[in-house]
């Protein structure tokens, strides 16, 4: 239990997807102009991460790892399919996003109209694929750990995009040198937020 809490806190603050690894930066910069849409995208990211990561974990553990297929028949005992992981992960992510989109559209039209445009975008959001690749690289041992990691990184991403959107809303009123307006100052603000987030790195868990 304590281990899961550690993974959760770590993936929100110390290994934040945005500030430590720059994942999902494109939509992070493009959709952070108002707090409302940022909240929508943030929730969609948490949602998709929590669904895709455990699925990818199970596929990785029971199909792709060296010898993982031995539950099927002993002759697969030294078959190593891990080189296929990229293509499988991205296919899972793309199809689950599609699936989630259809389910949400069918059952909660209100949520769909607020998330609508963001859901398809998420298929190519690096944070989602990045989550699966980090899961593979760090070798989480149980399904619980993988799911907690997914939830934690999603929440971290959500916090980051909502706070950037809030800052950008206020930024409209400030007098910035013309060439720096818009994109330039946003990058610098994200950099400064990243430095602030780095203060969490001293925490040992």
């Amino acid at each position: 239990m304590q281990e899961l809490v550690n993974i959760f806190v770590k993936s929100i603050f110390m290994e934040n997807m945005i500030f430590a690894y720059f994942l999902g930066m494109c939509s992070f910069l493009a959709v952070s102009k108002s707090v409302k849409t940022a909240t929508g995208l943030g929730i969609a990211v948490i949602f998709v991460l929590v669904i895709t990561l455990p699925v990818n974990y199970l596929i990785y553990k029971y199909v792709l790892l060296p010898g993982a297929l031995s539950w099927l028949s002993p002759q697969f005992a030294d078959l190593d399919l891990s080189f296929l992981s990229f293509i499988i992960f991205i296919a899972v992510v793309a199809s689950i996003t599609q699936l989630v989109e259809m389910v949400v559209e069918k059952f909660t039209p209100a949520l769909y109209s607020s998330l609508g445009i963001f859901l398809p975008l998420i298929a190519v959001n690096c944070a989602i694929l990045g989550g699966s690749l980090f899961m593979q690289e760090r070798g989480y041992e149980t399904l619980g750990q993988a799911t907690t990691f997914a939830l934690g990184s999603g929440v971290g991403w959500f916090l980051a995009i909502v706070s950037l959107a809030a800052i950008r809303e206020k930024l409209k009123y400030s007098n910035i040198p013309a060439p720096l307006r818009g994109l330039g100052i946003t990058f610098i603000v994200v950099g400064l937020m990243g430095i602030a987030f780095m203060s969490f790195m001293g925490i040992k868990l």
Partner: protein
Amino acid sequence: MNKKIFTEPLFKGNPITVLVLGICSALAVTTKLEPAIVMAISVTIVTGFSSFIISLIRNTIPNRIRIIVQLVVVAMLVILVDQILKAYSYEVSKQLSVFVGLIITNCIIMGRIEAFALGNKPFPSLIDGLANGFGYGIILVVIAFVREFFGSGTLFGIQIIPLNWYLKNGGFYENNGLMILPPMALILIGLIIWVQRSISKDLIEK
């Protein structure tokens, strides 16, 4: 015509500083020059060839499932790059870790396929893809140069700043540790955008 396709993405339509594409997997690899250059080459190759392949089959892809077809082509190229890197330069491949895989979701590639390759002949698409890869590579190399030079005092791992300049050897110089930290890459891009927009005023946002 072809020349314009090539020069446009290098400055005026640079994928990173103007179109804001492909920042995701780029910045974490720029602490040292070597991985940055390997990353730039990989992305250039993948962008060029995926545009080329998609453009070849553009008239046969059904519109509804084009995203997944594109992803499969890109993923295949990325797997090839990853296997080649693992075979011939294992050290760099370890340093790049998950970021090779993340080339798949690099927005430049999908962006160029959607915006250019789907509506143009294969050869111009190849040039467009390669040029966008170069435009991305230039920014990556500039950032990596600044970060490695000021952050570790080295270039390509070779000591540039004389060792006896350092404080610990009785000199006056100290490496700027801030440059190694991830947020500095973002601030550097911000500054590059500032410089670029001061040079060409028509890019300034209202």
